[in-house]
């Protein structure tokens, strides 16, 4: 029995992410350059495999692959790794890659458990908006995932630097400084916030076409609005010196929790217009 190409590619991506995460987490702790050299190509390989997989899937099934959790989570993990790779090349941030890849592997593996074959989406979702709204929203989630990872590293460094001594302090000193980490989080949110704003606006336009009203306080709409407000608060608080740093990074962590609720919690636990059950 031969596996279809897209399932082989998912396997390659999952394997590459898992091994890459392992290598880069070891690099994070040991700072041994050989682990970085092993991890980086794996990250790029997994990311490429995922985008090829989505293209192959669309080509073979002729169904836009993003309208169920299987395809959507696949794009989410691919975009997270892609945005992270862009950041890492630009600002030399490979030390954090293990955590991004680990999250990408977890979300991809979780997405695979939602595999339901090639069912076409419900009629109201069959629209060109699926090709605009979904990639934009999922990319904004991915940018927030990158912000979340760097916020966690910021918080780790902040709290460990206060109590850490000797070896721990030396290890932490090799990472970018707290203001540099904070600036990276800011840049990631600065990508995510315009994207989620466009996502909510295009979502309203799609809702108008599909359901007859721009905004109906559907759980997904409410949760997205909440996340949008959290990240807007992040941006406003970031201009205040007393809040910049420790507190804004906690806001970023809360924001990502709200994104995960909006993305997965709403689909799984709450039935509304966005639960894509046929």
């Amino acid at each position, binding site marked *: 029995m031969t596996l279809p190409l897209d399932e082989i590619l998912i396997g390659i991506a999952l394997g590459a992410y898992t091994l890459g995460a392992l290598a880069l987490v070891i690099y994070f702790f040991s700072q041994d350059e050989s682990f970085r050299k092993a991890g980086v190509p794996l990250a790029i390989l997994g990311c490429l495999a995922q985008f090829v997989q989505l293209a192959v899937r669309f080509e073979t099934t002729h169904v836009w692959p993003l309208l169920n959790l299987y395809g959507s989570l696949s794009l989410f993990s691919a975009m997270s790794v892609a945005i992270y790779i862009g950041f890492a090349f630009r600002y030399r941030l490979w030390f954090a890659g293990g955590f991004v890849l680990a999250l990408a592997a977890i979300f991809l593996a979780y997405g695979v458990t939602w595999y339901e074959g090639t069912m076409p989406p419900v009629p109201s979702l069959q629209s060109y908006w699926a090709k605009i709204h979904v990639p934009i929203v999922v990319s904004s989630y991915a940018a927030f995932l990158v912000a979340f990872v760097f916020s966690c590293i910021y918080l780790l460094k902040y709290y460990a630097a206060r109590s850490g001594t000797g070896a721990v302090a030396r290890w932490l000193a090799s990472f970018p400084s707290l203001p540099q980490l904070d600036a990276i989080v800011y840049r990631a949110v600065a990508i995510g*916030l315009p994207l989620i704003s466009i996502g909510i606006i295009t979502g309203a336009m799609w809702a108008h076409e599909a359901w007859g009203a721009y905004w109906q306080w559907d759980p997904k709409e409410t949760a997205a609005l909440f996340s949008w407000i959290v990240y807007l608060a992040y941006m406003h608080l970031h201009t205040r010196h007393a809040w910049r740093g420790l507190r804004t990074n906690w806001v970023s962590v809360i924001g990502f929790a709200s994104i995960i609720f909006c993305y997965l919690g709403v689909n799984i636990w709450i039935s509304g217009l966005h639960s894509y059950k046929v």
Partner: protein
Amino acid sequence: VMYSGFQYRHDPGVPLVGIGAFVLLTGLIICFYFVPARLYVRVDDIGAQRSRVGLAATTVKGYDVFESEFARLVVALKADNS
């Protein structure tokens, strides 16, 4: 039970909301990707046809982001000079 639903909507505010959405997005993009900064250049004459050029900048926001941009600018100017 046989039934059908009809819906008639009149939304005179839609163009206004559209303009609002456009302004919001433009504002967000300007706010994140264009950092307002003021550059100060000071040229001191140090004799013998030479002068020392000092460069400074202030910005009201995003100076973490601006810092590296400013550093790049200084490097570019130095390269241009030699």
